[in-house]
């Protein structure tokens, strides 16, 4: 779970620097965070092991 937030923090940090050169890295970090969040939603939210929630 913490990795999602670290990826978002990385994306915020690199966009905070405001350089166009790193915009691809920013996209990569943000999309990795997005995919991980979707994955964890399916794993935690939609799995039959709802007792974990």
């Amino acid at each position, binding site marked *: 779970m913490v990795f999602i*937030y670290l990826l978002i923090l990385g994306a915020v940090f690199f*966009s*905070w620097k405001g350089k166009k050169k790193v915009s691809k890295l920013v996209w990569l970090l943000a999309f990795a965070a*997005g995919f991980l969040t*979707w994955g964890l939603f399916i794993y935690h939210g939609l799995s039959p092991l709802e007792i*974990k929630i």
Partner: protein
Amino acid sequence: MNRNVFHLLGIFFLCLAVGCGLFIEFFYLQKPCSLCFLQRASMLMVALGLYWNLVYGTYARYYAFSFLSALLGLSCSLRHMGLNVCKPIGVDTFFFCSYRIYTWSFLVFFASLVCLSCLLFFYKQTAPISRKWQHIVGGVLGVLLVFCITSILYHRGFSF
């Protein structure tokens, strides 16, 4: 009115929502679950998409990222409501203005989707905001993220 004002307002309200969640967690000792963490991450990703509009200028792809994140958060909060709808209300259940926190989260994501749709409907390219404001907004987002990371490490450590 400059379009960036709407972006700033959106980021402000999303940060306020995440900040309120952290406040309730630490001052009312409400332990967040996995879906709560995912909803916070989605809120911050919606804010990140809006932040890109401030830094790089307005583009439809940044709205698309925010839109997808809001959709994810909406799914998480709906699932959260669905899981708890049949549970009896305990004495320690936390309510804010008659609603539980995940219901508020659902309303925030729904409002985000409506506002993003309106911004896309009246789409117009604008220049980036000044560097000073970029740094202030990025700093606020960074501080909130650090608080969220601390909260996760405190409650769950490095587990998924």
